[in-house]
Structures are given as structure tokens and as C-alpha cells.
């Protein structure tokens, strides 16, 4: 039985984040770094084709600051992404 895919968003715990930048490396289509090395995430639900890499980025954050969670109501899945 197929479970309906639930939209997921990537969020960063700003307090735990220490600007390692591993996430931006592993998921450049969704995450870029600001001038001080801290991640800027795109808004909206992560498109399905990026989900696996998003999970990989989450598990490789040295501070476990990145997380993937169900989108709050009203967040729609983003259309095909472009390079930032």
C-alpha cells in the first residue's frame, strides 16, 4: 500500500548551527551560505527528487542542526527548482 507523500520542509536550528556548511555542499540546489558561512534555506516543501539528498544532508550535519519535518499547513510543494 503506497503512503501518500507528505510535504516536508528543511529547517535549521539557528542556535545549534555552527556554520560548518556541509549541508550547502550536499544540497546546493536548496541551501546556500551567507557571507559568514551560515546556511540560507529556500522556503517551501522540498521537491521529491531532492528528498534523498536532503536526508543525507540532515544526517551529515555535524551539529544535527538541520532537520526535515512535515510542512506546516499552507506550505505547498515547490515547483521544479532552479540553481540559486
Amino acid at each position, binding site marked *: 500500500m503506497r503512503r501518500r507523500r507528505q510535504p516536508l520542509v528543511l529547517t535549521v*536550528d*539557528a*542556535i545549534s*548551527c*555552527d*556554520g560548518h556548511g556541509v549541508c550547502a555542499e550536499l544540497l546546493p540546489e536548496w541551501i546556500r551560505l*551567507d*557571507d*559568514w*558561512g*551560515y546556511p*540560507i534555506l529556500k522556503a517551501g516543501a522540498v521537491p521529491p527528487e531532492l528528498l534523498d539528498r536532503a536526508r543525507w544532508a540532515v544526517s551529515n550535519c555535524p551539529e544535527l542542526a538541520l532537520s526535515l519535518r512535515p510542512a506546516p499547513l499552507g506550505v505547498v510543494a515547490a515547483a521544479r527548482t532552479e540553481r540559486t
Partner: protein
Amino acid sequence: MSRLVLPAPVTVRMEGTRTGQPPADGTPASESEPAVSVEPGPGRLFADLPVAGEWRSLARHRATYRMPPPASSRPNGRLIELVGRAGLQGRGGAGFPTARKLAAVAGGSDRRVVIANATEGEPASGKDRLLVTRLPHLVLDGALLAAHAVGAGEIVVCVDRTSGEAARALRRALAERREQEPPSCDVRIALTPPRYVAGEETALVHWLNGGPAKPTLTPPRPFERGVDRRPTLVQNVETLAHLSQIATFGHDWFRQAGTAEEPGTALFTVSGVARPIVLEAEMGARGGDVLAAAAAPAGERLQAIVVGGYFGTWMSAKDLEGTPLSRSALAPFGASPGAGILVTLPESACGLLETARILRWYAGESAGQCGPCTFGLPALAKTTSSLAAGRAHSEDVGRLHRWAGEIEGRGACRHPDGAVRLLRSALSVFASDVEAHLRGRPCEGSRRPALQVPASSEEWR
């Protein structure tokens, strides 16, 4: 630099304010009580305000205000409803509907806590300290009423530990109470470190729980899990003072001042070119009227005003003149009354220089927990300083705008957002100055700083 020192407060006369009414129904009147009437006079919170150095004793206070009902672990829905009908909104800056907040905490599990927030981290604000120093019983009654409303057994009054006078006044007031009117629940005073963000809800809770006075991630918000993981109500002391009045004089009375969406009066602190002063005015009073009441020295015209404190927005004097001080009227300018703070800037001063100084202060007050705030705010401050000194180029202004967009919303609390908002409003209101400065011509007045911007301490405990 010392913080704001206030001379005698002034009340702005309001039109159409009627005398006190008998208590409205909905107040928890278990016994029938004689109707209470109030002498008509200037002000409501400031009615019969003691002069500087004096304070209203418990006996004197009780002559007007009925004793709050005892707090128990059961919330009082009728009192919350009364507050809702009065339409009271928080006076700590966010303007959140008080009844909603009370209901949220009342809905939580047992053992609730009330925090009366008198920390007043905004350097340009003086109203909370004033209330606590001269009308401590109005504040304490409000706290007890709030505790009764939400069903709390503990009240903590938080005061900045550098304001000795306020702490002393509170201790005195509590001693009076213990003698004459033992409180129905635990009331204690907590002296907070002198940091700006310490007054933020989650920071206060964090500190009371033994940590540094730095904001924490939400969820959970304090109303769900706060002090000792208990549902916690954090309320500004001015809001609690209004609550006392509503409980005694009723919701109809409260609504006779202010606007329909933002009823009642509020305390405004005006400083800058005007001598620092706290006024009481109706919500929706015209900016020009409030400034006039603050009596800015003649001959020194106003250039602009920071509306809502350093956490607020610049507005030109012209714009503020005819604009009512209410959320709805100020919203089109990207501004809000905040905690009722107006910092005036004279014609002779340089708005960009003052903004740079405030940004430097913002940077110094960062909790240092989140990268975009810790590193972004000093960068904003530095570049704005160069701009103010006439040493910047147009790419720097572009960079300011880019950084503003990138920093916003990426901290664990709203501190960096305040800096961004202030900066953006400065670049807009002082746009002609920006032009001039880019061409290497800083303002003449830029040699002397105009606003009082304090130095930051290093303590977090």
C-alpha cells in the same frame, strides 16, 4: 552611558473620558460591594500619580482599588472574558490580545506561573520602571489578578538589577503586603541581568530555569512549558496595571478611551531632543499631540523619530505629525507603537550616524547564539558607520540591502529582525542623506551624537 533618567511624568488630557463607573458585571464579585467612583482627572494609570521620590502606599491604593480575589489552581473564565471584552492588548511591544494569552495559559496543566515583566530592556523606555517605582501596588494587584485568572500559584516579578530604585520599591511594597494583606500565592522578586534580550519571554524563562538570559528555540512557547516546565504567563507590568483598572472599573470604562480595535490608554516614553518624559495618552492619539505634550525645546525642529523604540522604525517628523499612534495607523509606514517609545531626532543630527550607533548597540546585545545575528549585526553596524562618515560607496548600500534580506528571520529570536527593520527605515527616511554621504559629504551635525545609546554589559546570569 547611563540609561534614561526621567523627570516628572505628564498626562495628556483626553477628551470624552468619563468618570469611573461602578464595577461592570463579569468581575468576580462574590460579595456585593459599594460602587467605586474615581475622581475625574488627567490620566488613568497616572490619575493621582505620586511625584518623583514618592509612591502610593497600599492603604492609599486600596481606597480606590478593590482587593483581587485569591488565586487558586482553578482559572477564572469570567475574568478572562472580562479582559477579552475590554479588548486589552499587551503593552510590552507585541500588542498581543491579553485575553488570548490568559486563556492559553489557563488551558495548560496545573501549577502555572505568572511572570510580571518589568525588565524594560529598551534603553529609551522608562514607563515600566516608573510604574514599579511609584505605583507598585497597581502592578502587584494586576499580577494577582492575572494569577487568579489563569489559576497560578506563583508570581515572579522580574526587574533589571541595575535599577535599584525599582527593586527597592517592589521590596517595600511586598513587605507592606505581607504585613497588611498576605498574598494568596507566592510572590517573589527576581533581578535580571542588564541585557536587552533578557526581557524576551523565552529568555526570561531560560534565566529563571537556571540558564543564561538568552532566548531559546520555540516551540514550546512559555505558555505551554516555561518555568520548571510549567505553563507560564509572561506579561508586561503596564498590561497588568491596566488589568487592575479593568477589574475595578469595568470593560466599558476601559473602552471609553482609545480606538475600537485598540482600546484604552498607553504609556509613552518620549526622549531624544525632548527631555525624557513618560506620558499617558489614548491609543490612537496623534503623534504630533504626544510630541507637543512632551514639549520639545522650541527652535530645535524635529527631523525624524524612532517609533517603537530601538526595536522600531524611523519615521519622518512630517509623517508622524498627523498619524495616530496605533498599530493600524502606523502599519502603512512599516511602524508600530511597540512599547510606546518615541525617540526624537533634531534637525541638526545625522540620522545615519545615530542608526549606526544603534546598530552597534544591537550587535553588542546579541546573545551570540546564531551566526546571522552574531556576525551580521556587526557587519551592518560597520558598513552603516562608513556610510555615515561619508566613506562608503554605492555597492556598500547594495550590500546593506542584501544583508538585511539575508539576516532577517534567520535567528532564534526577533533581535536581528529589529536591527534590519530599523536599518531599512533609516535608508528610506534618510534617503537624501544617503545620497549626500555617498558623494562624500556627511552631515555637519554628524560630529556630535544625539541619542543616548548605552554600552552593553557582558553578564548573562
